[in-house]
């Protein structure tokens, strides 16, 4: 990816709303033809960052640089699909795609074939002449993506692309993003770790407006070590007893992260420690209600970095 050169660079990007620092000194580079994920909980500053990249929000400080393109053309460079479906309810799918293309200055000749091609790619061929207001939620989301792509942008920015989608639409959108990412650049913001893990070539984890970590999903997961995660849910634990359990389990030379009613235990062969952990729990009067063995996830990375769950 890096060999293809970068397309977008953010230098010390900052956005303040009164006393709130929504984006704090953010610097990162996005390469051509990569799918770049911005991962973080609500309020992490993902959408604010995107809005600044799209020119919808002026930064308080810092610089945004589009490499190899005139800054005047940045609007044509970007296709933005916001989290909320935004369309003209009284126009048909084809009519609004043509209008959306025309306002970007695309020639009339090329708009219609492009619109029809997009509708077909996103499984909306039969909805070509349907008014947008009458579409289902999933179809509206797909139309929103078509609207972002009608002017053939170099960078497609998707804000929570899979939010509220039915399984069929989710698979279709995911495949489309993968296909598009082979030729163009995709930036997607999400708080869905699974979505980011499956789609993104690189992921930037943000919290409280700051960049915590930026790497490929595999490398991010490696930052918390090789091995599996044992998730142990306690039925009757309170704060003190969970703390005590975490402390005593930690003495077994494993990595332990404690939650409100659970422990995450990490080691290369973590399952061998389960009888010992069970014994510690019983000695503290704790009942284990559920045990899960799984691989590392980005959520574990986030918890490792921040000490809290993404959805908290």
């Amino acid at each position, binding site marked *: 990816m890096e060999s293809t050169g970068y397309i977008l660079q953010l230098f010390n990007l900052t956005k303040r709303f009164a006393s709130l620092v929504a984006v704090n000194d953010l610097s990162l580079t996005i390469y051509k033809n990569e799918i770049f994920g911005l991962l973080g909980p609500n309020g992490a500053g993902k959408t604010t960052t995107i809005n600044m990249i*799209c020119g*919808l*929000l002026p930064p308080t400080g810092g610089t945004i640089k589009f490499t190899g393109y005139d800054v005047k053309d940045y609007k044509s460079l970007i296709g*933005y699909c916001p989290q*909320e479906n935004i369309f*003209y309810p009284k126009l048909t799918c084809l009519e609004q795609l043509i209008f959306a293309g*025309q*306002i970007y200055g695309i020639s009339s000749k090329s708009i219609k074939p492009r619109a029809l091609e997009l509708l077909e790619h996103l499984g909306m061929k039969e909805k070509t002449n349907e008014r947008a207001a009458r579409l289902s939620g999933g179809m509206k989301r797909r139309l929103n993506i078509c609207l972002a792509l009608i002017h053939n942008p170099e960078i497609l920015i998707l804000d929570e692309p899979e939010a509220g989608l039915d399984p069929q639409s989710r698979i279709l959108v995911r495949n489309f993003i993968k296909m598009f990412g082979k030729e163009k650049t995709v930036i997607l913001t999400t708080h869905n770790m699974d979505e980011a893990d499956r789609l993104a070539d690189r992921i930037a984890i943000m919290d409280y407006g700051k960049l915590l970590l930026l790497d490929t999903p595999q490398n991010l997961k490696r930052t918390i070590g090789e091995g599996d995660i044992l998730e142990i849910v306690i039925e009757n634990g309170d704060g003190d007893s969970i703390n005590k359990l975490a402390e005593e389990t930690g003495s077994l030379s494993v990595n332990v992260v404690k939650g409100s009613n659970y422990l995450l235990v990490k080691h290369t062969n973590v399952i061998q420690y389960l009888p010992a952990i069970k014994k510690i729990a019983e000695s503290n009067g704790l009942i284990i209600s559920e045990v899960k063995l799984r691989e590392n996830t980005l959520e574990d990375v986030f918890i490792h970095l921040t000490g809290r769950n993404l959805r908290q």
Partner: protein
Amino acid sequence: MKLLSVIIKSLREQIRSFWILILTLSMGPFFILVYFLITESSKPQYNILILNSDTGISGNGKITNHGENLISFFTLSKPDSISTLLIVTEISKRSTGIEKLKSKKADALIIIPGTFSQSLNSRETGDSIAVSNLEFIGDLTNTNYLISAVWANELVNEYALQITKSKRIIEVNETPLGISASISYFDMVVPGLLIVSLIMLMFTASIAFVSEVENKTILRLKLSRLTAFEFLGGIGFVQILVGLVSVAVTLITAILLGFQYEGSLVIMLIIAGLTSMSIIAFSLIIAAVTKSAGEVLVVGNFPMFLFMFFTGAAFPIKSETLFSIAGYPVTLQGLMTPSHAISALNKTLIMNMDIRSIIPEIVSILVLTLLYFIIGAVIFKRRHLRLN
């Protein structure tokens, strides 16, 4: 190209906003119909009963009954327009007539004597002292009786002068003030109602602007290379078309109901076009301070009522002159463009004056339109187009 795209898109959306379009286009004709019905039902009418006791006279082998001829004269002759207000009914019994007068079903009863024909014939043949006595019966305290009696007396004398080939001793020449002789109240209110049909644009135009905010599609405009001029101009152009259709429908309705205009239709279209622009510019202010079509329908009512009822659009009103500029009176209502538009339409459609005579009105509309537009555009840009 982009302007044309906005026009086409806006036109499609406008046509598909069926109910609001129907509301806008039907309001002018509706007001015309209402005023027509009001003016028709409020026209004064006087019911005159005639009991013809005339026995007639015979001569040259034929019988002449001047009583019958007088009744026909009442019914058929239309000196000025007042005779159309007299409804004449012939009765056969005096008692029937008296009963109708008492029950207010008639205003006057005229009894033609048996010697009516004979008296007129004597006059015709040179008997200068022959007199016929017609009896007028009615409630002397009732204004309707007085008007009926005056006009009936006028018609009777007119008939007698024609039959006896006599001339009046005194001829009265009536000079109408202005063009009051040829126009009706309905004709006078139509120019204002044409402007009412344009005032209704306030809703469609405001909704057209604000729907971009409500649907959040304004974001797409911000993301694209569309300029504010192309966005506002495209929507505004479609609204001017709606305004011209609205005026045309209203004018056609008025003409079908008897409206008679004198002046040039081209000048009328110029005035309508300018007024549409001013209403659209004002709508931008409404759209700027609202966020949804629902809010427009609530907030928009206040300026709409001001524009309709305080500019002389819905009905003529008097306005106090604050000061004059080059002889053109400046009033408080003058801050609203419809007042100038109505004045211009009255001058052209009713007074048949040329375009030079309405230059002050045109200048006033243009200045106010510019003022509305600047205020609307500034607020709209700050509230809805600003990057935030």
